[in-house]
Protein backbone atom coordinates (compact mmCIF):
# COMPACT_ATOMS: atom_id res chain seq x y z
CA UNK A 1 0.00 0.00 0.00
CA UNK A 2 2.87 2.34 0.80
CA UNK A 3 4.27 1.85 -2.68
CA UNK A 4 0.88 2.42 -4.30
CA UNK A 5 0.64 5.67 -2.40
CA UNK A 6 4.15 6.62 -3.47
CA UNK A 7 3.30 6.02 -7.12
CA UNK A 8 0.84 8.90 -6.80
CA UNK A 9 3.92 11.10 -6.44
CA UNK A 10 7.50 11.04 -7.69
CA UNK A 11 8.76 7.60 -8.64
CA UNK A 12 11.17 5.77 -10.90
CA UNK A 13 10.96 2.66 -13.07
CA UNK A 14 13.77 0.12 -13.33
CA UNK A 15 14.92 -2.32 -15.99
CA UNK A 16 16.82 -5.19 -14.39
CA UNK A 17 19.18 -6.53 -17.05
CA UNK A 18 21.04 -9.65 -16.00
CA UNK A 19 24.02 -10.86 -17.95
CA UNK A 20 23.88 -14.32 -19.45
CA UNK A 21 25.10 -16.66 -16.76
CA UNK A 22 23.88 -14.97 -13.60
CA UNK A 23 22.47 -17.95 -11.71
CA UNK A 24 18.73 -17.95 -11.21
CA UNK A 25 19.47 -18.78 -7.57
CA UNK A 26 20.51 -15.13 -7.24
CA UNK A 27 17.08 -13.87 -8.20
CA UNK A 28 15.45 -14.11 -4.73
CA UNK A 29 18.45 -12.18 -3.40
CA UNK A 30 17.76 -9.47 -5.96
CA UNK A 31 14.05 -9.38 -5.12
CA UNK A 32 14.85 -8.97 -1.42
CA UNK A 33 17.27 -6.24 -2.38
CA UNK A 34 14.60 -4.38 -4.30
CA UNK A 35 12.40 -4.36 -1.21
CA UNK A 36 15.29 -2.80 0.72
CA UNK A 37 15.56 -0.16 -1.99
CA UNK A 38 11.84 0.57 -1.90
CA UNK A 39 11.96 1.04 1.88
CA UNK A 40 14.94 3.40 1.74
CA UNK A 41 13.58 5.47 -1.14
CA UNK A 42 10.19 5.69 0.58
CA UNK A 43 11.91 7.71 3.33
CA UNK A 44 12.21 10.62 0.93
CA UNK A 45 8.87 10.06 -0.76
CA UNK A 46 10.17 8.32 -3.88
CA UNK A 47 8.45 5.21 -5.16
CA UNK A 48 9.99 2.37 -7.14
CA UNK A 49 7.36 1.50 -9.71
CA UNK A 50 7.49 -0.79 -12.71
CA UNK A 51 10.31 -3.31 -12.80
CA UNK A 52 10.89 -5.10 -16.08
CA UNK A 53 13.41 -7.90 -16.45
CA UNK A 54 15.76 -8.55 -19.32
CA UNK A 55 18.85 -10.56 -20.04
CA UNK A 56 21.89 -9.96 -22.18
CA UNK A 57 22.29 -13.26 -24.00
CA UNK A 58 25.87 -12.84 -25.18
CA UNK A 59 28.75 -13.66 -22.88
CA UNK A 60 31.78 -11.58 -22.05
CA UNK A 61 30.21 -9.39 -19.40
CA UNK A 62 29.64 -11.89 -16.58
CA UNK A 63 32.82 -10.96 -14.77
CA UNK A 64 33.70 -7.35 -15.29
CA UNK A 65 37.47 -7.15 -15.03
CA UNK A 66 38.23 -3.63 -16.13
CA UNK A 67 36.10 -0.72 -14.99
CA UNK A 68 35.73 0.36 -18.56
CA UNK A 69 33.96 -2.85 -19.54
CA UNK A 70 31.05 -1.45 -17.53
CA UNK A 71 30.97 1.49 -19.91
CA UNK A 72 31.11 -0.90 -22.85
CA UNK A 73 28.03 -2.62 -21.44
CA UNK A 74 26.20 0.68 -21.02
CA UNK A 75 27.26 1.92 -24.43
CA UNK A 76 26.35 -1.28 -26.29
CA UNK A 77 23.09 -2.33 -24.59
CA UNK A 78 19.94 -0.52 -23.63
CA UNK A 79 16.57 -1.85 -22.49
CA UNK A 80 13.56 0.02 -23.86
CA UNK A 81 11.31 2.41 -21.99
CA UNK A 82 11.59 5.28 -19.54
CA UNK A 83 13.34 3.22 -16.88
CA UNK A 84 16.86 3.22 -15.50
CA UNK A 85 18.84 0.21 -16.76
CA UNK A 86 20.36 -1.74 -13.87
CA UNK A 87 22.86 -4.25 -15.28
CA UNK A 88 23.51 -7.20 -12.99
CA UNK A 89 26.79 -9.06 -13.53
CA UNK A 90 28.35 -11.77 -11.41
CA UNK A 91 31.48 -10.11 -10.11
CA UNK A 92 33.31 -6.85 -10.61
CA UNK A 93 36.96 -7.73 -10.23
CA UNK A 94 38.66 -5.14 -8.03
CA UNK A 95 37.39 -3.20 -5.05
CA UNK A 96 34.11 -2.05 -6.47
CA UNK A 97 30.81 -3.90 -6.18
CA UNK A 98 28.85 -1.32 -8.12
CA UNK A 99 29.42 1.38 -10.74
CA UNK A 100 27.35 4.33 -11.90
CA UNK A 101 27.76 7.64 -13.65
CA UNK A 102 26.82 10.67 -11.52
CA UNK A 103 24.37 11.87 -12.62
CA UNK A 104 23.28 9.38 -15.22
CA UNK A 105 22.27 10.33 -18.73
CA UNK A 106 18.71 11.45 -19.48
CA UNK A 107 19.06 9.91 -22.92
CA UNK A 108 18.81 6.13 -23.11
CA UNK A 109 21.02 6.35 -26.17
CA UNK A 110 23.42 8.81 -24.55
CA UNK A 111 26.78 8.03 -22.99
CA UNK A 112 26.86 6.20 -19.66
CA UNK A 113 23.23 5.16 -19.62
CA UNK A 114 22.94 2.56 -16.88
CA UNK A 115 24.33 1.30 -13.60
CA UNK A 116 26.20 -1.93 -12.90
CA UNK A 117 26.07 -4.16 -9.82
CA UNK A 118 28.12 -7.28 -9.15
CA UNK A 119 25.58 -9.62 -7.60
CA UNK A 120 27.69 -12.46 -6.24
CA UNK A 121 30.27 -9.95 -5.15
CA UNK A 122 27.74 -7.93 -3.25
CA UNK A 123 26.31 -10.92 -1.41
CA UNK A 124 24.01 -9.55 1.23
CA UNK A 125 24.53 -6.05 -0.12
CA UNK A 126 22.74 -6.46 -3.44
CA UNK A 127 19.81 -4.21 -2.54
CA UNK A 128 22.15 -1.73 -0.96
CA UNK A 129 24.31 -1.70 -4.08
CA UNK A 130 21.37 -1.23 -6.44
CA UNK A 131 19.85 1.51 -4.28
CA UNK A 132 23.25 3.21 -3.90
CA UNK A 133 24.13 3.13 -7.60
CA UNK A 134 20.68 4.28 -8.70
CA UNK A 135 21.13 7.08 -6.15
CA UNK A 136 24.26 8.14 -8.04
CA UNK A 137 22.41 7.88 -11.34
CA UNK A 138 19.79 10.22 -9.93
CA UNK A 139 22.49 12.72 -9.00
CA UNK A 140 23.62 11.90 -5.46
CA UNK A 141 27.28 12.20 -4.48
CA UNK A 142 29.00 10.12 -1.81
CA UNK A 143 28.46 11.07 1.84
CA UNK A 144 31.89 10.26 3.27
CA UNK A 145 31.09 11.36 6.80
CA UNK A 146 27.68 9.73 7.19
CA UNK A 147 28.04 5.96 7.78
CA UNK A 148 24.29 5.64 8.32
CA UNK A 149 23.55 7.10 4.90
CA UNK A 150 22.82 5.06 1.78
CA UNK A 151 25.43 7.08 -0.08
CA UNK A 152 28.29 6.20 2.27
CA UNK A 153 31.04 5.04 -0.11
CA UNK A 154 31.67 1.60 1.40
CA UNK A 155 29.31 -1.31 1.86
CA UNK A 156 27.58 -1.95 4.16
CA UNK A 157 26.22 1.53 3.73
CA UNK A 158 23.55 2.95 5.94
CA UNK A 159 19.89 2.81 5.05
CA UNK A 160 19.08 6.47 5.45
CA UNK A 161 18.37 9.17 2.92
CA UNK A 162 17.81 12.77 3.89
CA UNK A 163 15.31 15.26 2.56
CA UNK A 164 17.91 17.24 0.65
CA UNK A 165 19.07 14.11 -1.12
CA UNK A 166 15.48 13.29 -2.03
CA UNK A 167 15.18 16.79 -3.46
CA UNK A 168 18.18 16.20 -5.70
CA UNK A 169 16.88 12.84 -6.88
CA UNK A 170 13.46 14.25 -7.70
CA UNK A 171 14.96 16.71 -10.18
CA UNK A 172 16.48 13.97 -12.36
CA UNK A 173 14.87 13.51 -15.74
CA UNK A 174 14.17 9.82 -15.09
CA UNK A 175 11.90 10.76 -12.18
CA UNK A 176 8.27 10.12 -13.16
CA UNK A 177 5.26 12.03 -11.91
CA UNK A 178 2.04 10.59 -10.53
CA UNK A 179 0.68 7.43 -12.12
CA UNK A 180 -2.97 7.38 -13.04
CA UNK A 181 -4.16 4.59 -10.75
Amino acid at each position, binding site marked *: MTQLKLLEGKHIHLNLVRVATLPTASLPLIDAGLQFMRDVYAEVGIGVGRILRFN*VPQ*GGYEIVVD*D*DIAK*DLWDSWS*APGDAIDVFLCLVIVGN*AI*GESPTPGSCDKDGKDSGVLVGVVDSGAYVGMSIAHEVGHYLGL*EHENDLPDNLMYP*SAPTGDRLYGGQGGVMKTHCFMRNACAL
Partner: protein
Amino acid sequence: MTLRVRLPEDSALEGVTRIDGRFGLDPDRVSLARIRRAIAGGDAELPAARAMTLLFDSDFPNKHRDFEKVLADDAAPELLRRVAAAYLGRMQTPEAVEILVQQLDIRDELVLSSVVRSLGASGGRRALETLDALERDLPASVYDEVVVARTFIAHRIGVEGAERPTSSEIAFIDVDERCSGKLGVMAADRNDTELCLRALGRRPFGIELAENAIQVRCQRRVWLFLPNHLYSTHSALGGLASHRAILGLVASRVQATGLYSLAYVLLATPLEDGTIRVVATRTNGQMTFGGSARLDERGLHFSLRAAARPGAFAIGVDGTWANGELRVERAVAGFTAEFPRNRPERELPPAVQNARRVT
Protein backbone atom coordinates in the same frame (compact mmCIF):
# COMPACT_ATOMS: atom_id res chain seq x y z
CA MET B 1 30.88 6.32 -8.96
CA THR B 2 31.74 3.08 -7.26
CA LEU B 3 30.51 1.37 -4.16
CA ARG B 4 33.18 -0.55 -2.32
CA VAL B 5 32.76 -3.18 0.31
CA ARG B 6 33.98 -3.23 3.92
CA LEU B 7 33.48 -5.52 6.87
CA PRO B 8 31.47 -4.56 9.94
CA GLU B 9 33.60 -2.84 12.56
CA ASP B 10 33.16 -5.67 15.04
CA SER B 11 34.46 -8.39 12.77
CA ALA B 12 38.03 -8.38 14.04
CA LEU B 13 38.16 -12.14 14.30
CA GLU B 14 41.88 -12.39 14.69
CA GLY B 15 42.73 -9.08 16.22
CA VAL B 16 44.35 -7.83 13.05
CA THR B 17 41.30 -6.88 11.03
CA ARG B 18 40.60 -3.21 10.94
CA ILE B 19 38.52 -1.79 8.21
CA ASP B 20 39.15 1.47 6.52
CA GLY B 21 35.65 2.69 5.98
CA ARG B 22 36.51 5.04 3.15
CA PHE B 23 38.55 2.80 0.93
CA GLY B 24 37.07 -0.56 1.79
CA LEU B 25 38.94 -3.52 3.17
CA ASP B 26 42.60 -2.94 3.81
CA PRO B 27 44.56 -6.03 2.73
CA ASP B 28 47.37 -5.12 5.09
CA ARG B 29 45.05 -5.40 8.05
CA VAL B 30 43.35 -8.68 7.25
CA SER B 31 45.42 -11.77 7.97
CA LEU B 32 46.45 -14.13 5.21
CA ALA B 33 44.97 -16.99 7.20
CA ARG B 34 41.58 -15.32 7.20
CA ILE B 35 41.77 -14.53 3.50
CA ARG B 36 42.62 -18.15 2.73
CA ARG B 37 39.79 -19.40 4.93
CA ALA B 38 37.37 -17.06 3.18
CA ILE B 39 38.53 -18.19 -0.26
CA ALA B 40 37.82 -21.75 0.85
CA GLY B 41 34.29 -20.65 1.72
CA GLY B 42 34.77 -20.69 5.46
CA ASP B 43 34.03 -17.08 6.38
CA ALA B 44 30.42 -16.03 6.53
CA GLU B 45 31.28 -12.33 6.63
CA LEU B 46 33.82 -12.25 3.83
CA PRO B 47 32.65 -13.60 0.45
CA ALA B 48 35.27 -15.71 -1.34
CA ALA B 49 35.41 -13.46 -4.41
CA ARG B 50 35.97 -10.45 -2.17
CA ALA B 51 38.71 -12.30 -0.28
CA MET B 52 40.46 -12.90 -3.61
CA THR B 53 40.41 -9.16 -4.24
CA LEU B 54 42.05 -8.63 -0.87
CA LEU B 55 44.68 -11.22 -1.69
CA PHE B 56 45.37 -9.56 -5.04
CA ASP B 57 45.68 -6.14 -3.40
CA SER B 58 48.03 -7.49 -0.74
CA ASP B 59 51.80 -7.57 -1.12
CA PHE B 60 51.99 -11.26 -0.22
CA PRO B 61 54.69 -12.50 -2.63
CA ASN B 62 53.32 -16.00 -3.23
CA LYS B 63 49.72 -15.01 -3.89
CA HIS B 64 49.89 -16.47 -7.40
CA ARG B 65 50.08 -19.91 -5.77
CA ASP B 66 46.81 -19.28 -3.94
CA PHE B 67 45.16 -18.29 -7.20
CA GLU B 68 46.68 -21.33 -8.89
CA LYS B 69 45.22 -23.59 -6.21
CA VAL B 70 41.72 -22.25 -6.85
CA LEU B 71 42.07 -22.29 -10.63
CA ALA B 72 43.37 -25.87 -10.74
CA ASP B 73 40.70 -27.22 -8.40
CA ASP B 74 37.99 -28.89 -10.52
CA ALA B 75 35.75 -28.99 -7.47
CA ALA B 76 35.99 -25.27 -6.77
CA PRO B 77 33.04 -23.09 -7.86
CA GLU B 78 33.37 -22.13 -11.50
CA LEU B 79 32.96 -18.46 -10.66
CA LEU B 80 35.90 -18.45 -8.24
CA ARG B 81 38.09 -20.24 -10.73
CA ARG B 82 37.29 -17.57 -13.30
CA VAL B 83 38.06 -14.80 -10.82
CA ALA B 84 41.37 -16.53 -10.00
CA ALA B 85 42.21 -16.58 -13.72
CA ALA B 86 41.34 -12.88 -14.00
CA TYR B 87 43.66 -11.96 -11.14
CA LEU B 88 46.50 -14.10 -12.51
CA GLY B 89 46.15 -12.16 -15.76
CA ARG B 90 46.34 -8.88 -13.89
CA MET B 91 49.47 -9.82 -11.96
CA GLN B 92 51.71 -9.48 -15.03
CA THR B 93 54.46 -11.71 -13.62
CA PRO B 94 56.18 -14.60 -15.42
CA GLU B 95 55.01 -16.98 -12.70
CA ALA B 96 51.37 -15.99 -13.16
CA VAL B 97 51.59 -16.31 -16.94
CA GLU B 98 53.16 -19.76 -16.61
CA ILE B 99 50.35 -20.89 -14.32
CA LEU B 100 47.81 -19.75 -16.92
CA VAL B 101 49.65 -21.59 -19.70
CA GLN B 102 49.72 -24.74 -17.58
CA GLN B 103 45.95 -24.54 -17.09
CA LEU B 104 45.02 -24.43 -20.78
CA ASP B 105 43.84 -28.04 -20.53
CA ILE B 106 40.93 -27.08 -18.27
CA ARG B 107 37.71 -28.63 -19.55
CA ASP B 108 35.19 -26.18 -18.13
CA GLU B 109 34.34 -23.90 -21.04
CA LEU B 110 33.80 -20.73 -19.02
CA VAL B 111 36.89 -21.21 -16.87
CA LEU B 112 39.00 -21.95 -19.94
CA SER B 113 37.68 -18.78 -21.60
CA SER B 114 38.80 -16.77 -18.58
CA VAL B 115 42.26 -18.38 -18.68
CA VAL B 116 42.60 -17.56 -22.38
CA ARG B 117 41.43 -13.97 -21.89
CA SER B 118 43.97 -13.47 -19.09
CA LEU B 119 46.73 -14.85 -21.28
CA GLY B 120 45.74 -12.35 -23.94
CA ALA B 121 46.29 -9.59 -21.41
CA SER B 122 49.64 -10.82 -20.18
CA GLY B 123 51.14 -13.63 -22.25
CA GLY B 124 54.30 -13.74 -24.33
CA ARG B 125 55.84 -16.07 -26.93
CA ARG B 126 55.33 -19.31 -25.01
CA ALA B 127 51.69 -18.44 -24.35
CA LEU B 128 51.20 -17.68 -28.05
CA GLU B 129 52.75 -20.98 -29.12
CA THR B 130 50.60 -22.89 -26.66
CA LEU B 131 47.45 -21.11 -27.82
CA ASP B 132 48.40 -21.77 -31.46
CA ALA B 133 48.66 -25.46 -30.63
CA LEU B 134 45.24 -25.71 -29.00
CA GLU B 135 42.84 -28.08 -30.66
CA ARG B 136 40.68 -26.62 -33.39
CA ASP B 137 37.45 -28.15 -32.13
CA LEU B 138 37.18 -25.77 -29.23
CA PRO B 139 33.71 -24.49 -28.33
CA ALA B 140 32.91 -21.34 -30.32
CA SER B 141 33.00 -19.06 -27.29
CA VAL B 142 36.47 -20.29 -26.31
CA TYR B 143 37.70 -20.17 -29.89
CA ASP B 144 36.70 -16.50 -30.15
CA GLU B 145 38.64 -15.76 -26.97
CA VAL B 146 41.65 -17.64 -28.35
CA VAL B 147 41.66 -15.53 -31.53
CA VAL B 148 41.44 -12.31 -29.51
CA ALA B 149 44.20 -13.47 -27.12
CA ARG B 150 46.49 -14.50 -29.99
CA THR B 151 45.92 -11.11 -31.61
CA PHE B 152 46.90 -9.25 -28.45
CA ILE B 153 49.98 -11.41 -27.81
CA ALA B 154 51.15 -11.25 -31.44
CA HIS B 155 51.05 -7.45 -31.27
CA ARG B 156 52.72 -7.43 -27.86
CA ILE B 157 55.73 -9.41 -29.07
CA GLY B 158 55.66 -8.13 -32.66
CA VAL B 159 55.06 -11.28 -34.69
CA GLU B 160 52.61 -12.49 -37.30
CA GLY B 161 49.54 -14.32 -36.10
CA ALA B 162 45.83 -14.05 -35.65
CA GLU B 163 44.01 -10.84 -36.52
CA ARG B 164 40.86 -9.65 -34.80
CA PRO B 165 38.98 -7.84 -36.08
CA THR B 166 39.66 -8.94 -39.62
CA SER B 167 39.62 -6.36 -42.41
CA SER B 168 36.17 -7.47 -43.55
CA GLU B 169 34.79 -6.78 -40.07
CA ILE B 170 35.88 -3.15 -40.05
CA ALA B 171 33.55 -0.32 -41.02
CA PHE B 172 33.99 3.23 -39.84
CA ILE B 173 31.63 6.14 -39.20
CA ASP B 174 32.27 9.57 -40.69
CA VAL B 175 31.62 12.53 -38.46
CA ASP B 176 28.83 14.86 -39.49
CA GLU B 177 30.54 18.22 -38.97
CA ARG B 178 27.15 19.94 -38.46
CA CYS B 179 26.42 17.78 -35.45
CA SER B 180 29.73 17.46 -33.64
CA GLY B 181 31.92 19.13 -31.05
CA LYS B 182 35.66 19.52 -30.70
CA LEU B 183 37.69 17.13 -28.61
CA GLY B 184 40.27 18.79 -26.39
CA VAL B 185 43.68 17.21 -27.06
CA MET B 186 46.81 18.34 -25.18
CA ALA B 187 49.87 17.09 -23.35
CA ALA B 188 48.77 15.57 -20.05
CA ASP B 189 49.64 17.08 -16.71
CA ARG B 190 52.62 15.27 -15.12
CA ASN B 191 50.79 14.61 -11.86
CA ASP B 192 47.81 13.26 -13.75
CA THR B 193 50.11 10.98 -15.74
CA GLU B 194 51.76 9.69 -12.59
CA LEU B 195 48.35 9.05 -11.02
CA CYS B 196 47.28 7.15 -14.11
CA LEU B 197 50.45 5.04 -14.27
CA ARG B 198 50.07 4.13 -10.61
CA ALA B 199 46.42 3.19 -11.12
CA LEU B 200 47.20 0.93 -14.09
CA GLY B 201 49.87 -0.91 -12.11
CA ARG B 202 52.82 -3.00 -13.15
CA ARG B 203 53.22 -3.50 -16.92
CA PRO B 204 49.55 -2.95 -17.77
CA PHE B 205 48.48 -5.26 -20.58
CA GLY B 206 52.02 -6.59 -20.65
CA ILE B 207 53.79 -3.45 -21.84
CA GLU B 208 55.87 -0.68 -20.29
CA LEU B 209 54.28 2.72 -20.71
CA ALA B 210 56.09 5.98 -21.40
CA GLU B 211 55.37 9.09 -19.37
CA ASN B 212 54.68 11.51 -22.24
CA ALA B 213 50.92 11.05 -22.05
CA ILE B 214 48.30 12.88 -24.09
CA GLN B 215 45.02 14.01 -22.56
CA VAL B 216 41.79 13.89 -24.56
CA ARG B 217 38.66 15.60 -23.25
CA CYS B 218 35.05 15.41 -24.40
CA GLN B 219 32.68 17.28 -22.09
CA ARG B 220 32.92 15.51 -18.70
CA ARG B 221 34.95 12.61 -20.05
CA VAL B 222 38.73 12.51 -19.82
CA TRP B 223 41.10 9.96 -21.34
CA LEU B 224 44.87 9.64 -21.29
CA PHE B 225 46.78 8.07 -24.14
CA LEU B 226 49.96 6.49 -22.80
CA PRO B 227 52.39 5.37 -25.51
CA ASN B 228 54.22 2.09 -25.35
CA HIS B 229 57.71 2.92 -24.07
CA LEU B 230 59.17 1.04 -27.04
CA TYR B 231 57.62 3.49 -29.52
CA SER B 232 57.90 6.74 -27.62
CA THR B 233 60.91 7.97 -29.58
CA HIS B 234 61.07 9.02 -33.23
CA SER B 235 63.75 6.48 -34.15
CA ALA B 236 61.77 3.58 -32.70
CA LEU B 237 58.68 4.45 -34.73
CA GLY B 238 60.33 2.94 -37.81
CA GLY B 239 59.72 -0.51 -36.37
CA LEU B 240 55.98 -0.02 -36.91
CA ALA B 241 56.53 -0.37 -40.66
CA SER B 242 57.96 -3.85 -40.28
CA HIS B 243 56.14 -5.59 -37.44
CA ARG B 244 53.01 -5.52 -35.37
CA ALA B 245 52.95 -3.59 -32.13
CA ILE B 246 50.87 -2.38 -29.25
CA LEU B 247 51.15 1.38 -29.78
CA GLY B 248 49.97 2.21 -26.31
CA LEU B 249 46.99 2.21 -23.99
CA VAL B 250 44.16 4.63 -23.41
CA ALA B 251 42.92 5.02 -19.85
CA SER B 252 39.68 6.72 -18.90
CA ARG B 253 39.25 8.83 -15.80
CA VAL B 254 36.55 7.84 -13.33
CA GLN B 255 34.72 11.06 -12.77
CA ALA B 256 33.98 10.54 -9.10
CA THR B 257 37.40 9.49 -7.87
CA GLY B 258 39.72 11.02 -10.44
CA LEU B 259 41.35 7.60 -10.79
CA TYR B 260 42.05 5.94 -14.12
CA SER B 261 41.16 2.57 -15.52
CA LEU B 262 42.30 0.84 -18.69
CA ALA B 263 39.92 1.58 -21.55
CA TYR B 264 41.47 0.76 -24.93
CA VAL B 265 44.47 -1.05 -26.37
CA LEU B 266 45.92 0.46 -29.57
CA LEU B 267 47.15 -2.17 -32.02
CA ALA B 268 49.27 -1.41 -35.10
CA THR B 269 49.66 -3.76 -38.06
CA PRO B 270 51.85 -2.98 -41.11
CA LEU B 271 50.09 -3.62 -44.42
CA GLU B 272 51.54 -4.56 -47.80
CA ASP B 273 50.78 -1.14 -49.32
CA GLY B 274 53.12 0.51 -46.80
CA THR B 275 50.39 1.90 -44.58
CA ILE B 276 49.77 0.83 -41.00
CA ARG B 277 46.41 -0.33 -39.80
CA VAL B 278 45.57 1.09 -36.36
CA VAL B 279 42.80 -0.44 -34.27
CA ALA B 280 41.67 0.43 -30.75
CA THR B 281 39.89 -2.35 -28.91
CA ARG B 282 38.45 -2.82 -25.47
CA THR B 283 40.26 -5.39 -23.36
CA ASN B 284 37.58 -7.91 -24.37
CA GLY B 285 38.57 -7.52 -28.02
CA GLN B 286 35.62 -5.31 -28.95
CA MET B 287 36.84 -2.86 -31.58
CA THR B 288 35.87 0.75 -30.84
CA PHE B 289 37.80 2.90 -33.29
CA GLY B 290 40.59 2.65 -35.78
CA GLY B 291 41.94 3.78 -39.10
CA SER B 292 45.22 4.00 -40.92
CA ALA B 293 48.60 5.62 -40.50
CA ARG B 294 51.70 6.14 -42.59
CA LEU B 295 55.27 6.78 -41.61
CA ASP B 296 57.63 9.32 -43.13
CA GLU B 297 60.60 11.33 -41.95
CA ARG B 298 58.29 13.75 -40.14
CA GLY B 299 56.60 11.10 -38.01
CA LEU B 300 53.52 8.89 -37.92
CA HIS B 301 50.54 10.50 -39.66
CA PHE B 302 47.25 8.95 -38.62
CA SER B 303 43.53 9.24 -39.22
CA LEU B 304 41.15 7.54 -36.79
CA ARG B 305 37.38 7.02 -36.91
CA ALA B 306 34.84 5.26 -34.69
CA ALA B 307 33.93 1.71 -35.64
CA ALA B 308 30.37 1.11 -36.74
CA ARG B 309 28.80 -0.86 -33.89
CA PRO B 310 25.75 -0.65 -31.64
CA GLY B 311 25.81 2.49 -29.54
CA ALA B 312 28.80 3.99 -31.36
CA PHE B 313 29.40 7.74 -31.37
CA ALA B 314 31.22 9.20 -34.36
CA ILE B 315 34.72 10.53 -33.78
CA GLY B 316 37.39 11.83 -36.11
CA VAL B 317 40.99 12.43 -35.08
CA ASP B 318 43.71 13.30 -37.60
CA GLY B 319 47.24 14.16 -36.54
CA THR B 320 50.92 13.35 -36.42
CA TRP B 321 52.90 11.60 -33.69
CA ALA B 322 56.60 12.49 -33.71
CA ASN B 323 59.37 12.73 -31.13
CA GLY B 324 56.96 11.76 -28.37
CA GLU B 325 54.65 14.66 -29.20
CA LEU B 326 51.24 14.76 -30.81
CA ARG B 327 50.17 17.40 -33.32
CA VAL B 328 46.44 17.30 -33.92
CA GLU B 329 44.91 18.65 -37.10
CA ARG B 330 41.34 17.66 -36.41
CA ALA B 331 39.63 16.14 -33.35
CA VAL B 332 35.83 16.04 -33.31
CA ALA B 333 33.10 13.85 -31.83
CA GLY B 334 29.43 13.45 -32.69
CA PHE B 335 26.74 14.40 -30.18
CA THR B 336 24.54 11.34 -30.54
CA ALA B 337 24.97 7.62 -31.08
CA GLU B 338 25.01 6.75 -34.77
CA PHE B 339 23.70 3.21 -34.33
CA PRO B 340 20.96 1.97 -32.00
CA ARG B 341 22.14 -0.09 -29.07
CA ASN B 342 21.51 -3.79 -28.71
CA ARG B 343 18.22 -4.60 -27.04
CA PRO B 344 18.36 -7.23 -24.29
CA GLU B 345 15.78 -10.02 -24.32
CA ARG B 346 12.74 -9.59 -22.12
CA GLU B 347 12.24 -12.25 -19.45
CA LEU B 348 9.50 -12.93 -16.96
CA PRO B 349 9.87 -12.43 -13.20
CA PRO B 350 10.94 -15.59 -11.32
CA ALA B 351 7.52 -16.01 -9.68
CA VAL B 352 5.79 -16.05 -13.06
CA GLN B 353 8.38 -18.45 -14.49
CA ASN B 354 7.82 -20.82 -11.57
CA ALA B 355 4.05 -20.59 -11.94
CA ARG B 356 4.30 -21.55 -15.61
CA ARG B 357 6.41 -24.55 -14.74
CA VAL B 358 3.76 -25.74 -12.25
CA THR B 359 0.90 -25.43 -14.72
